[in-house]
């Protein structure tokens, strides 16, 4: 195993994406994306729904392979790794899914214990301490014996976060961590992301379209649109950007370079027609 890249990576990027191309069939999702996530930093990836933020995370975690370009994680090229190699990389990652993705037939405690049981042989007493410590960190030690169906959306996401950090990952990936949360749960998650990052020195990638929440925690933000990185920089830099598409996204105007309407034919003709000659793609 080559040692040099890992050493080099310790100085700078944990994740490095170069010239990434990807598409579903003939539909292009990424058309040359470059981005980096620096060690110990919170990197935000923003963009309108459907730009491919989740797809980007699937590429970084090695679930799908790009059409072209390179994806480097911990200094290893993900695209050339076999299944065993990808799995060994993933042991150093934690991921928080949009809806938590807790295993519904296991209790909260067993959900958090799941990766530990799968990868380590720990005495039950040590395992219990470890799991309860992580649950305490997200404020849910008291919910250890509940089933996932008994949790609110915010609680489920915090349990999923405890599960994501239970193996002490070096890289934590969040997919839309703020969606559908009430303001209090949202505040809790925002604080947890930054605290985990600062206290444990974890590198974080946060995918979201909640500009304001991200601004308070991200060190560096990327704005994706139309298959490309259209802007990147610190939240302050993005805020000051003169680019219309950045302005539209940061201030949340509904129409602009990012159109409100999905491409469609003539509205008037569509309403008055009998629907038969509707153009199909």
């Amino acid at each position, binding site marked *: 195993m080559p040692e040099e890249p890992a050493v080099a990576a310790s100085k700078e990027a944990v994740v490095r994406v170069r010239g990434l191309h990807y598409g579903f069939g003939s539909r292009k999702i990424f058309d040359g994306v470059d981005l980096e996530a620096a060690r110990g930093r919170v990197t935000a990836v923003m963009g309108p729904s459907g730009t491919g933020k989740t797809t980007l995370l699937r590429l970084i975690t090695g*679930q799908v392979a790009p059409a072209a370009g390179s994806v480097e994680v911990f200094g290893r090229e993900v695209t050339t790794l076999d299944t065993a190699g990808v799995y*060994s990389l*993933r042991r150093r990652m*934690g991921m928080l899914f949009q*809806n938590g*993705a807790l295993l519904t037939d296991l209790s909260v405690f067993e959900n958090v214990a*799941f*990766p530990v049981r799968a990868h380590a042989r720990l005495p039950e007493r040590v395992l219990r301490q470890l799991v309860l410590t992580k649950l305490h960190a997200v404020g849910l030690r008291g919910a250890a014996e509940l089933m996932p169906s008994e949790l609110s959306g915010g609680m489920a996401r915090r349990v999923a976060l405890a599960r994501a950090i239970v193996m002490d990952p070096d890289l934590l990936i969040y997919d839309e961590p703020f969606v559908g949360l009430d303001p209090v749960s949202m505040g809790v998650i925002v604080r947890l992301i930054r605290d985990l990052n600062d206290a444990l020195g974890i590198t974080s990638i946060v995918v979201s379209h909640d500009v304001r929440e991200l601004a308070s925690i991200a060190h560096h933000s990327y704005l994706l649109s139309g298959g490309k990185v259209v802007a990147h920089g610190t939240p302050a830099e993005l805020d000051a950007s003169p680019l219309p598409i950045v302005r539209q996204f940061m201030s949340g105007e509904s129409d602009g370079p990012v159109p409100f309407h999905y491409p469609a034919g003539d509205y008037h003709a569509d309403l008055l027609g009998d629907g038969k000659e509707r153009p199909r793609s």
Partner: protein
Amino acid sequence: MIGDTLSRIGRVGIFLVRVLRHAGVVFTEPRAVVHQIYNAGARSLVIIMLCGLFVGMVLGLQGYDLLQRFGSEDALGVAAALGLLKELGPVVTALLFAGRAGTSLTSEIGLMRATDQLTAMEIMAVDPLRKVVAPRLIGGIIAMPLLVAVFNVIGLFGAQLIGVQVMGVDTGAFWSQMQGAVELDDVNEGIVKSFCFGVACSLVAVYEGYHAQPTAAGVGLATTRTVVISSVLTLLIDYILTAAFLGR
């Protein structure tokens, strides 16, 4: 159409090989496998017993009606035993299994797919084929012959109940003719069939669940497909195996 079916069979075959590479879970995680035997088996037990009783009772009635026309109603025990062991036991159990255990396997795995639970496992470097699919497939394969055995026992009891208790066939003749005429080969045929049906029905159920579209409609569709494909496959395999056993 034929090309489609063939490539589909190929994909299912590859899936089977990929899952069976994790057959070691029987030894490394026996509790998970036992839990799935319980899920597929114990939970189908009541419906299997109930249907076994009715099928046996019908056999008693029809068998008696048929045999008494030839004055050989004493052979009812043989007729019922052979009918159950070789055909009705494995086939009816497999059809019930597809409807009861197969559908719940498919929808369970399909929902895990739709709610990202399978992806989450992959990200935690745990192979869902090993953790989720293998124990369920093996549990189903083990459960099927056991269910068939239960079905047969209850079925024989039902046939005896009607034939002997109600229609008045001689008890001694019923049991002794059965003992005399049923051969080991007949029992083997039933065992081979129930094993093959177990593999087919469990495999279809986990395959459809694992490959379901990750939406509510997708999981529903996959569940329907499980019942339809398992049933057709069971009857097709039944014909092939019957022909093979008779042709020897």
